[in-house]
């Protein structure tokens, strides 16, 4: 940069001068449930006097760096009081090394803390993690456990940007970023299992559930939903409740879809499919019987 040039040149060169193009700011963040659940578990196991816990988030970035997918997290030791905050960096490095042996694709993307108050210490920790994730920006996920009075459980994600004429590590602005829960469709049933468990008395459910029992439960839920709709429709017809026009249209749409596949013609297909299924069921039983007999015969031969 030429010193003593005209001001126009000076301005232009200063805007270009950062040699590296700054990586783009993440605009959306997705979180895998396991990361959240680990945070909750860590929070449960904290020391009594610890107001909040922090830890490292691992995940992946999209190629253009606008999306971050948080895939797992681990706890990091830290202590904070009025005078200072300390993060056990060595512990953090060890854990990251251990994790990367199993899941080499996951890199450090940021850090989490519980509770939703952002303070000077948050900025300091953020500064530390920014060094870890350089050249990318570190993200911060604040998970409110909802365990404290008057607070609602929820998740918030932030990226930071420096503030002030001379950026100092303890000053920064946390900019909120939209955050979504994301998981693979196949993992869905595991989460369903957990939500069912959470609703049941004692918070426990017995395993394994057969697929028939599972189907039964789902059909019951559907049947209950139909009952609810039916009760509502009857109430509207009897004039007890005023009908909601939007709701009526929704019902019409849904029932219209259901009625399409009606009337004969498929009997043939149905029967063919029935034969197939019965055949498979028969085959499965045959195979099992054979296996059992074979196992018994192995014992007899001596």
């Amino acid at each position, binding site marked *: 940069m030429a010193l003593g040039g005209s001001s126009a040149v000076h301005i232009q060169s200063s805007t270009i001068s950062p040699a590296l193009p700054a990586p783009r700011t993440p605009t959306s963040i997705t979180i*895998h*449930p*396991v990361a959240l*659940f*680990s945070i*909750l*578990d860590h929070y449960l*196991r904290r*020391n009594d006097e610890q107001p909040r816990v922090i830890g490292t988030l691992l995940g992946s970035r999209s190629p253009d760096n606008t999306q971050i997918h948080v895939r*797992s997290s681990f706890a*990091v030791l830290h202590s904070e009081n009025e005078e200072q905050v300390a993060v056990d960096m060595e*512990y953090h490095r060890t854990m990251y090394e*251990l994790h990367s*042996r*199993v*899941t080499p694709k996951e890199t450090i993307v940021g850090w989490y803390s519980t509770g939703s108050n952002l303070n000077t210490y948050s900025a300091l920790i953020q500064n530390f993690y920014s060094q870890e994730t350089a050249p990318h920006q570190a993200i911060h996920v604040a998970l409110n*456990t*909802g365990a404290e009075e008057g607070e*609602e*459980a*929820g998740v918030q994600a932030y990226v930071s940007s420096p503030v002030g004429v001379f950026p100092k590590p303890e000053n920064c602005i946390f900019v909120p970023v939209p955050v979504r829960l994301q998981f*693979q*469709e*196949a*993992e*869905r*049933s*595991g*989460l369903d299992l*957990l939500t069912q*468990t*959470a609703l049941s008395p004692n*918070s*426990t*459910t017995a*395993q394994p*559930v*057969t*697929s*028939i029992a599972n189907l039964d439960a789902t059909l019951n*839920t559907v049947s209950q939903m139909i009952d609810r709709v039916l009760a509502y429709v009857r109430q509207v017809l009897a004039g007890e409740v005023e009908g909601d026009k939007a709701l009526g249209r*929704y019902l019409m749409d*849904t029932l219209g879809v259901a009625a399409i596949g009606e009337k004969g013609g498929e009997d043939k297909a*149905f029967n063919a*499919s*029935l034969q197939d299924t*019965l055949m*498979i069921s028969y*085959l*499965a*039983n045959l*195979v*099992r019987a*054979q*296996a*059992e007999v*074979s196992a018994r015969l*192995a*014992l007899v*031969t001596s």
Partner: protein
Amino acid sequence: MAATSMAAALAASLPAAPVAPTPAAPTYEAIPPSMSKVIDIEAEIPLQVVQLDGLVVTKILKHSKESSATVHGLLLGLDLDGTLEVSNSFALPHHVSDEDEKSAKSSARYQASMLRSLREVQADDSVVGFYQATSLGAFFNQNLVEIQAIHQEKLRHGGVVIVHDLSSTARGNASFRAFRLTPSFLDAYKKSNFSTSSLVNHRLTFSSILEEIPLQIRTNPLLGSFLESLTKSTPSLLPDTTPETARTSVLPPSFSSLDLGTTGLTRNLEQIIEAVDNYRTEEGNLAYLSRQIARERARADMYVAKRKEENAMRVAQDLPPLPEEDVARLFKIPAEPSRLESMLLLGQIDAYGKSLESTASSGLIKMYGVRSI
């Protein structure tokens, strides 16, 4: 073999024997009477039930979904009054090559340092078993048996193995089951004797290799309330909405078990054919070996009989009898082959059959259900 190296690694990392009760520390804290019944230093209270924490459920799900091969991990937790509470888990690195000694050692180091790290953040750090992910319910294999056999000797209460079925989870029914080896199988395994007579003595078939322990899933209250706030639905803020988007929720209800598709059925059938083929090959080997044994034995018997006849003749002619030589030295009769592999294969076939049957039966119900609409 990967199996052996991993087993060796486990053996190296596990604490030696059930941790001996630390000899009388002089300061006693009074044990409250309500707890005195459940104090169980010698692991005498038998395990009734395994309780799996919600965190572990998601961890296993994620791990087994990410990697295509069968995955393993260790389960951490503690037992209290007959309930084995599994409160945490971590994945074990996948063995790519069979770098035997070296990888076994590094795997042991990995486990040790992971356990140490977890202890520092006050997570449970005692190994209580391991988990394995399979598909279509066929979890019988040498690897599993081998690791569990080591665990059962070294761990308090013998440890458990939790089997997670991927294909069933994909169909909308997350399935976890807990097992351990039966005493009779363990006995035969220790003697590493799976000849026919040993099988008969121990009354072993594939169904008596493992015994199932009841399994419960548990969510702690914090997790429960968090999940509830995730599933809570709120009216959408958008003015024009379709029925699907009128209410939004982070975790909308799903009805994936009502899916009519029969995906995986063909794969299941293929798996059965493959397993049956394997079994046939194994059976062929066994038959070949036993024929060989029979042939050798017949030859030895013939030799002995001939010698006896000759001697009888010589005695009749008042000649000194020829010495009866050591038959075992002349004829090498091969040892009877192990039937473990064929037994495990049968177990696999059975499991495939079972999962095929359950798919078919629920498919039948769905078909009639659709028809009646």
